[in-house]
């Protein structure tokens, strides 16, 4: 079983958001975790139609305990930059943030494919 979550950037401000099952939320800890690929794909298809709300929705894989995205890139998206610990989502602190920071075994290639992209 591979856990997945649905993420995107919000069009209006670029903020990283996650699908909670009912709303688009800003913290990964509030994200709905899909253990079945079919509803995950259905949620993704719905998100892709929300073009005035979101940019580029996609599914990410999540650690088996559901505490953190698998990929290092996605952890940084879920936290904020590591050079400014006071900025971004990590500023909220708490156990959920600490769990992402403490997650091990990053595997970026399972987070999202085709990450090596050209510069615009």
């Amino acid at each position, binding site marked *: 079983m591979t856990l997945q979550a649905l993420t995107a950037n919000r069009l209006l401000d670029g903020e990283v958001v996650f699908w909670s099952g009912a709303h688009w939320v800003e913290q990964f800890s509030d994200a709905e975790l899909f253990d079945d690929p079919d509803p995950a794909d259905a949620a993704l298809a719905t998100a892709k139609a929300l073009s*005035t709300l979101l940019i580029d929705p996609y599914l990410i894989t999540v650690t088996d305990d559901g505490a953190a995205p698998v990929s*290092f890139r996605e952890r940084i998206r879920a936290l904020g930059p590591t050079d400014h610990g006071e900025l971004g989502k990590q500023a909220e602190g708490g156990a959920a943030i600490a769990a992402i920071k403490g997650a091990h075994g990053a595997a970026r290639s399972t987070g999202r494919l085709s990450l090596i992209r050209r510069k615009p």
Partner: protein
Amino acid sequence: MSVYAYDTIDREMLADRAAEFRGQVARRLSGALSEDQFKPLRLMNGLYLQLHAYMLRVAIPYGALDGRQLRALAAISRDYDKGYGHFTTRTNIQFHWIKLKDAPDILDRLAAVDLHAIQTSGNCIRNITADPYAGATAEEVDDPRPWSEALRQWSTFHPEFTYLPRKFKIAVTGSSKDRTVARAHDIGLKLIRGAEGRLGFEVMVGGGMGRTPYLGATIREFLPAKSLLSYLTAILRVYNRLGRRDNIYKARIKILVASMGAEAFARQVEAEWALLDQASIDLPDLELERIRAAFGAARFEALPARSQAFDAARAADPALARFARNNLSAHKQPGYTVVNISLKAPGATPGDATAEQMEAIAALAERYGQDDIRVTHAQNLVLPHVRLDDVPAVFAQLQHYGLGTPNLDLVTDIIACPGLDYCALANARAIPIANDIARRFAEPDRADAIGELKIKISGCINACGHHHVGHIGILGVDKKGEEFYQLSLGGSGAEDASLAAILGPALPADQVAPAVQALVDAYLGLRTGQAERFLDTYRRLGPAPFKEAVYADADQA
């Protein structure tokens, strides 16, 4: 007046552009434009989507700013970002926390101080790099800024060169010492004096970094200066016609020049140039004089070459003495100096400046520096015209704002791109690696003893951190999901330009700073004396002793 003075036409153009973008944003938010339709429009205004938010890249034309403009950038960072900005290796500034809904207002704010984000993205001619010591160094044969401004005007919205096969970068230097990395640009231009003192350019073409680095080849030893625009038109036409559009990774002019050979490329350019109506393209002398005059002239007082006040202050203050030794450069005018402001304080993100720091630098420029500020490709700032008498006061203020780090061109003056902490393209972080290395060499006496050592870090193969021309270059790679770093040695972006060669297998993040230490220790044991830089020792001995130093340690780890 220190920067080129915009006229009514320039200002109307910027206002129109900002208004146009406001309409485009409104149409995107309403759904009238899809993201696919909107993305090229926002990129043409420097607005990228990165990991945490939008990023706005603002052009700083040939790296020259005045206090009014730097204050405006500070205010934008405070009002629309998170209170800081990031100066880049393209001598631009990036704001990493921008909201789309604010972007039109920001463009209006920029336009109010003659700034913009035009052509900071896209397959067009980008912001021009120029010598940050322009107008200040005795080495230069002519000031590169008027030529850069002429190129800016020529290339902005140029209908023929707006959709090139790929982006296009030009550097202009007037000095024998290259502070622009001219040979790593699509076109590098070096002002020179030819026979009978005539002014001209050495024209280098086909340099670049990225995944396939090349140093530019000189295709014309001497181009009469008055022919600059027509000759560049010929180069761009040949590139536009023959450059590859079928493969994005082979689309830069460097690939074309390398595949044709520089001589064959030069012949094509000369043939194209001969067909052009050059007089209709080249800058009339009167127009060049108008541009020169629009910069205003720096006003220098007649001063003695030495300043007693400065000499006494540095004799009394070892910190000032160190700053003077490392961060001041010779000025053409007796009694003046070039003050380099390092944005590489211990623990800081290379190239970052807070709003307060930007305002402090603006105030220093206005009070002590003829209202002139420059941005360097090494992500530092420069006050090019400061009286030696004023250096103690300037240094005191710099220290107060955390800007007095005396490490120009030393081991802790590290270039680092934003990397995976911000950038959607990156494979690995660059900033924490820079911080690790800087911590390891934090003792200033040790950094001084090591001497000039340029470390450059990129978080991906696109090479924004200039790792190919680092004395020590560091490239972040993704190795089975982990951040790894490939070390290269022997690069130089200066007048002795060279490309770095990969030292060996990539290292995990926690072994990079120890590896750099091993390299430095090896160098210190091998150098013939303090005058022999790390780069010189590497060039003399080759990679073997350095490879042994790093990988012997790595094996033990």
